[in-house]
């Protein structure tokens, strides 16, 4: 994996997310998420924290699994607003999708 890039959490602020680094990776969001999908949304949030842009764009489709039920945001012990973070990542992916050639073939 490329270098950790802390400019990414800063960049996400333009997409309406200011709590990226508040998360302390407890996994409560993944446990409560009704999707029962492996590590969602925790893994995405971690990729955002370390600035793994490629991983986020590669796996962008996953972001659209979210039902926006709000359970993760309700239970997050750090009030890091994981639901909103996922929505912010959607906005980021949309913004970069076509330009960066991440259209699934």
């Amino acid at each position, binding site marked *: *994996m*490329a*270098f*950790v890039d*802390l400019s990414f*959490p800063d960049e996400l602020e333009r997409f309406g997310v200011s709590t990226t*680094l*508040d*998360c*302390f*990776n407890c996994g409560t969001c993944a446990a409560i998420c009704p999707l029962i999908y492996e*590590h969602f949304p925790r*893994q995405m949030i*971690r*990729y955002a*924290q*370390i600035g*793994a842009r490629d991983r986020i764009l590669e796996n962008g489709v996953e972001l659209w699994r979210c039902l926006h039920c709000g359970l993760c945001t309700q239970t997050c012990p*750090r009030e890091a607003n994981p639901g909103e973070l996922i929505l912010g990542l959607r906005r980021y992916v949309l913004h970069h999708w076509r330009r960066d050639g991440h259209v699934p073939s």
Partner: protein
Amino acid sequence: MEEKRNLASDGSDAPRVGIYICHCGGNISDHVDVEVLCEKAEKIPGVAVARRNMFMCSDPGQELIMEDIRSGKVNRIVVASCSPSLHEMTFRSALERAGANPYVYEHANIREQVSWVHHGEPATEKAFQLISAAAAKARLLEPLEPLRVEARRHATVIGAGIAGLRAAVDLADRGFQVALLEKTPFAGGRVARLDRLAPTGEAASEAILSLARRVMEHPAITFYPCAQVVGFDGYVGNFSLELQVEPPAAEDAVPPSNLPPAGDGEPVFVPSRGVLLGPLPTEKGRIQVETGVVVLATGFKPYTPRKGEYGYGELPEVMTLPQFIEALRDAQADGSVLMLSGRPIRSIAMIHCVGSRQIPGIHEEDASGYLNEYCSRTCCSATLFAANQVRTRYPETRVFEFYRDIRAYGRGQEELYQEAARNKVLFLRFEPEDPPRVERSDGSSGTPLVVRVKDALTFGEEVQVPADLVVLAVGMEPTGIQDLVDLMKLPVGADRFLLEVHPKLRPVELATTGLLLAGTCQAPMDVSEACNAASAAASKAASLLAKGYVQLDPFVAEVDMEKCQGTGSCVEACLADGAIELVDVVVNGETVRRARVVQALCLGCGACVAACPSGAIQVKGSTLAQFEAMVDAIASHEAA
């Protein structure tokens, strides 16, 4: 008082033993037939009464015993219950409150030694044997008087770090003379090398100065800088220490501008060194200190990483947290980027648990074969605190923390962790078997170093962090005080810190009465915990010395001068240095050698009793005759 105490040897002094059997809720009575036991015990020769109770240690249980004593029904007591370490003192004090001598008491352990390990008929049998033996001994018990040892109203504190200063001030405030010893020229110890203290942010220099001022002003405290303890003997209330003082070594010489101005009583703080509290010795010398208690406040030293451990000693951009704290203190206070030695530091990688929580088979032992398996407790908060300082003072400097677990346990410390997240510190987590690797960068990172880690938070993927600086959060090790350990026979734990008697019930006492522990010589602690421990040690010391004498149990050896032939075998057998000595006495106009016991030093172990060829030495409260009676009681029972 005298009259009450003599109850056991008053006019009607035939031994009348009372046996008190405890059910311990059901702990005992579920397995031992206490009813049968009670009936049988009543028939043991010399037993006046046998009773039982659900909880003998309860108030009604104790009252049962006290009532029998007051009415004169019994004058020797046996309680059959739990381990004597739990309740022997409880029942001795009940005897005392009923006006009896507290030493006409014998304890039979029928819980740990019987009901918890045996069941049914054999359990009851064994309980009866133990009670018979105890009753046989009880019949021969004599009233004893506790030893009284005169105590000097003087305390010595070894080490003038924050804990030593705290203990010295507390003791002096309670009206004791205090000698405060320090091997360096400075007071303040390790705290003097810190800048601001986590989690509150107060200045370390102020914390030291506020105590140092009181030490300086207090007429009862004598400060001995540049002093080492080279001689130690005596016992609680009457220790004597020999100090070696030497003029400071050249590297400790202080620039004259830092010396206190003449006539000004204000102590001077020298950053990274500590506080000068007065003139330093100009020539070598020896000083004798006579004292009542000794408080050990010898402190800790930070772990020194091995050469090559996370690049330490090989890559100049790698330093320890204590070094970084000093560098940060001396750095230009503002600017968007932290500058160290003219170099911009845009990215700092801080690695936790260096030299702490080491695991056999994973970590390498040090040169003497030790692993620091303990958690040093303070480094998490200190690292978080330093990270927050960097982030708030230099917004363009990024901080990455590599941790195994965050243990921010005290008041205000979890908040440091939350604050670090708000300050956009990035945390990466590693497993002990896959520690981060600190490497020289190939240039692609734009920094001199790269730290690679299998990040557990990114589900084990390898993550690379560019770093201008790597800071190692090193743990604590006890200061090397082997000389004191040998000299004062101090107990040392497996972790090499000094070991208290009991971690919860006697947390600042050492096994030798009169030796106390203050601060990080005992375990890793932060400043408030060290001061807590120091104040605890001071109040323990004060309670030992306050009466002007110390009371000790009378279970010590006693020489029968009629029988002693002065062979000296007891002196050879003795385990406590100086507890038995040979002295010249005049018998029938002839000078002969005889053994004499120094009661305050005697451990009451009985090694001398076994060695004496003429049976002239006995341990009070455990005489040979008493033991023989116990054996007879058990043997006769076996025969029956």
